[in-house]
């Protein structure tokens, strides 16, 4: 108790401010017994801690309380502790949630607005008024529309706070271009949601968007569960890539041996694969209205419309790509001395810090780290493309020579004679 430091000079430290914030966590309330699913974050973190992973006990408990407060404050259907992302100046506690149907907040429609096309200038600096100047032939690729709330990369919504007890802030929806850009950069987060992202190439958004993009990438890659825990809804029309699933009520927990099988057949992804396009569900970036069905077998559209595909939901991890030549996942038991009650831990080698435990019929995912994907090779910044070429010299921009006086006269003579 360090009675030894009792003579410290008092100071109105940030500590106190922090603690005052946290006090709201400990306000006691009647338990709400409705259908809201709130993961017991403290219990999951206990399981991780028993494997030497996760966070401290007190923080875990505060997180549980903070998540329960979030669940009270918003019209959520489910909420779980997603993880903690470390930043340079501050950290993010991340909660993953689903809104109750119909309670989704209004989508920010401005995100749909066509970005102003540079180089598409309408020649307002035209020298003469006589004729319009040529329009730019450059067609920027139309932005790929983002997936809507509840779908694909935006299936879940994410809330972050700086520490348990601080205000929960909803992250914006993620756009494909943010995901694509995030893949090419390698950037520490600062801990300030409104911080500019100073990457090259420039990131389309601020840190809140980058954070959201990283969460999307980590989620798509590392949200795994014991095979069989989830199953496709029988009623679901499973024709073209089913994207929803339900807990299998008859799930028989996998044995530890199955879960520890290095073939990884005991584990499946239960988040959709994030396509190169930056979406989970591929969209034709330049859809032509097909005139008729028979046009489909025409080859001419080939170069712009090859649909990207990824592994379907609930596929075992065994097909996951290597990580720089190493296995994508590491498996182990949480305890070597007490294997009977140990849990099985699967850790992503692609996103160090992403772990899942499974014990009995329970499992949970967590990510605690810097939000940086693993790479064994040195980062080589993406360089700008080759400089553009000038307009080719050609007949179309070769000037006609004025007729000489002799030609004029000859022509005039010919005209006159005609």
């Amino acid at each position, binding site marked *: 108790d360090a009675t*030894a430091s009792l003579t410290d000079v008092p100071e109105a430290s940030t500590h106190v401010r922090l*603690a005052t914030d946290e006090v709201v966590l400990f306000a006691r309330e009647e338990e709400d017994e409705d259908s809201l699913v709130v993961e017991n974050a403290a219990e999951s973190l206990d399981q991780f801690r028993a494997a030497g992973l996760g966070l401290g006990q007190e923080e875990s408990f505060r997180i549980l309380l903070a998540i329960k407060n979030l669940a009270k404050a918003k019209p959520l259907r489910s909420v779980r502790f997603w993880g903690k992302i470390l930043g340079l100046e501050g950290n993010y506690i991340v909660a993953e949630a689903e809104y109750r149907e119909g309670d989704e907040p209004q989508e920010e429609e401005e995100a749909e607005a066509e970005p102003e096309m540079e180089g598409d200038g309408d020649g307002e600096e035209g020298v003469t008024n006589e004729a319009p100047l040529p329009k730019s032939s450059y067609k920027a690729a139309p932005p790929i529309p983002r997936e809507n709330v509840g779908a694909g990369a935006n299936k879940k919504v994410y809330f972050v706070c700086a520490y348990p007890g601080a205000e929960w802030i909803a992250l914006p929806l993620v756009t494909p271009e943010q995901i694509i850009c995030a893949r090419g950069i390698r950037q520490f987060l600062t801990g300030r949601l409104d911080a500019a992202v100073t990457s090259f190439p420039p990131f389309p958004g601020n840190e809140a968007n980058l954070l959201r993009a990283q969460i999307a990438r980590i989620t798509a890659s590392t949200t795994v569960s014991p095979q069989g825990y989830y199953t496709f809804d029988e009623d679901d029309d499973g024709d073209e890539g089913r994207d929803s699933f339900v807990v299998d009520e008859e799930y028989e927990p996998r044995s530890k041996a199955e879960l520890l099988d290095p073939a990884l057949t005991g584990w499946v992804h239960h988040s959709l694969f994030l396509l190169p396009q930056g979406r989970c569900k591929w969209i034709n970036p330049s859809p032509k209205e097909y005139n008729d069905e028979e046009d489909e077998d025409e080859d001419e559209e080939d170069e712009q419309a090859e649909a990207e595909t990824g592994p379907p939901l609930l596929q075992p991890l065994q097909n996951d790509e290597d990580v720089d030549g190493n296995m994508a996942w590491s498996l182990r038991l949480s305890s070597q001395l007490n294997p009977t009650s140990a849990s099985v831990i699967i850790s992503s080698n692609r996103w160090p810090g992403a772990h899942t435990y499974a014990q009995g019929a329970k499992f949970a995912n967590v990510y605690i780290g810097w939000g940086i994907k693993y790479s064994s090779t040195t980062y080589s910044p993406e360089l700008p493309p080759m400089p553009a070429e000038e307009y080719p010299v050609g007949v179309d921009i070769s000037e006609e020579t004025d007729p000489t006086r002799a030609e004029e006269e000859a022509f005039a003579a010919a005209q006159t004679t005609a």
Partner: protein
Amino acid sequence: DARMLTTGLDCVAGSGIVLSAEQRAALQSSLPTLQASQRFRAIKLWGRIVALSTEYFIAQAYGSDLLDPTVFYSSDCSVWAQLPRVHPVIVEAASKIAGRFQGDPAHEYSVTQPAPAADAPPLNLPDEVAALRKTVDNMVTTTLTEEMRLAATVSLVDFEVAVVPYRAFRRNPDGTIQACKSFEGLTPLEATKLSSFYHFRRPTNSASESKNPAIDFLDPITNDLPKTSWSLQAERGSELSVLRSLLWPGYVFYHVPESRIFGSFYSGLGTRNNDLVFMLP
């Protein structure tokens, strides 16, 4: 200090004293807030008194006088109420209450004791204390609340068993007491001896003619009666010294030898072991 909460709790866990993560998390939030709210220099978790229907957590906050803390209690580690300062005659009466704390701060106890002898010097009690006492047939009946009993118990425990290691505090010429900056912990050998521990209270034996009054000013616990009213054990080898009071079972003092880490925690029923003399071998 709230900062050292976890270390301290680790040190008393072997005596069966643990707090849940919930309690620790709440304390880490509420104690600093409490400290700041009244500009205390320091605050520490004193302990826990287990009542029949609840647990009273006790915190002590310090201003300039290390021996005169302001005491708070809470049943949820989160919302704290200040305990009243109780007059010595109330402490004395409360010490006569047998039985468990009930868990209701407003619960009333009555204690009947013989009135002071007629020729005793007058007590000159403050009105609010006198109001609690009623004399009938030469017997004084004191009526006090569980909250008062709680306050009295904390001060009794502090007076009777609160302990610090030798050299950890010094007395300034003006009589104030402060932590001794040069304290480096007891040696492992010292930490095995009862003679290295002193009562953290205003010395009762004021006539101490010590050679070094700045250091040797506290009452040694070796003068306690019975001498064996302490159980001093090394835990985890000699890594940790744990001194358990047998007079107030649940009071546990810990010290990591050769370090400045020491402290104490009370976790018990809030009742004094008046049978101690019979229970020793």
